[in-house]
């Protein structure tokens, strides 16, 4: 026998305005199942997701993101921390743009990194987001896993190579260019 739905078991926002469907005894079992399904999907979000959302919405990333989308090239100093650069890379990848068009010279200490406008705002795909997430925390095992996953797009090859290059280049230059004085537009 179906368990009658208890209105107080509904979610906080909904418990005060049940619909005729939710009050229909014939549908009470279905409604209870839907509530369980919704709860299961909410519970299935990864623990890291909220932290990533907070990190990716940091003001400097939003500013860089807006700038990249709206105003064309910006520059960051290669002397800034790897973390900032990778966070920027993550923001760019998150915005759906291939990193391969963003990264210019990274070789010399103190050299500025050109960040070009996006090629397309519609190129977003989840492997890029995951790759960027992995890059942010230097999770090379995850990057490798994404790289080896046959189901992902060939864009990952480009992104993976670029993030690797960014990582190693910035590691080499970060210490020697700690206090950069990049001109206007620098982060």
């Amino acid at each position, binding site marked *: 026998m179906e368990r009658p739905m208890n209105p107080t078991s509904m979610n*906080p926002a909904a418990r005060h305005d049940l619909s005729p469907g*939710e009050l229909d005894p014939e549908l009470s079992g279905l409604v209870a199942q839907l509530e369980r399904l919704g709860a299961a999907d909410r519970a299935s979000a990864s623990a890291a997701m909220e932290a990533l959302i907070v990190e990716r*919405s940091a003001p400097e990333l939003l500013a860089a993101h807006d700038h990249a989308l709206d105003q064309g090239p910006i520059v960051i100093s290669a002397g800034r921390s790897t973390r900032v650069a990778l966070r920027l890379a993550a923001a760019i990848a*998150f915005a759906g743009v291939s990193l391969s068009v963003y990264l210019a010279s990274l070789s010399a200490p103190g050299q500025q990194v050109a960040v070009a406008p996006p090629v397309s705002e519609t190129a977003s795909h989840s492997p890029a987001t995951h790759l960027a997430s992995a890059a942010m925390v230097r999770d090379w095992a995850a990057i490798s896993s994404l790289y080896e996953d046959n189901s992902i797009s060939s864009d990952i090859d480009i992104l993976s190579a670029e993030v690797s290059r960014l990582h190693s280049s910035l590691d080499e230059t970060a210490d020697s260019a700690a206090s950069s004085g990049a001109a206007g537009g620098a982060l």
Partner: protein
Amino acid sequence: MSDHGPDNGPDRGVLQSPDLTALLRAASGGSEAAWRQLVGLYSRRIYALAKSRFGKADVAEEITQSVFVTVAAKLGASNAGAPDSGKYTESGKFEPWLFRVAMNRIRDEARRARHRAIPTDPASLSFQARPAGTDPAPITAELDSLRAAMEELSESDREIIELRHHGQMSFKQIADMLDEPMGTLLARHHRALRKLKDIITRATADQTVVSPGALRGREVV
């Protein structure tokens, strides 16, 4: 529909928590703690909407993150250089706006997915890859059947059900979001539930014909 921001027009009767108003105000004023709290309050609800639609955790996370970037930019805009800097005013529109942004992202992704025609990864739908103990609400075969049945609903029927049961929205908020009269919305929700029940009943009957013992022990709604 637009996702250009929650307008601050007249309140149409949605009960607003003073806490939410204060939270939005603090977040728009640059409080990271308030922002974290906002993300904690809403991210899983939005994630669940996307997860229900696409069945893939990575896509759901991407959509959720995208929605919150929009929210952060909106709240930040009210903080940076604007005349009402740091004085974001919530007047009952935030949640409908937030979920409208989410639904627009979901629709965009659905369109893109259709163009890409990427085969569905069965593993992402089975929920069996999740390590034991990480999911407090066990996904049963019953819920998998329900998820499959929802695939057969029309876009609009599915949207209402997902906003209600995954997004945990009140009907007043959904009505505001979809710009529909409350009575119409309630009737639509009732019809959508009926259709869903019919789909499940039909599928169950079909399965019983094929394999009379296959469904033994399962609850039939």
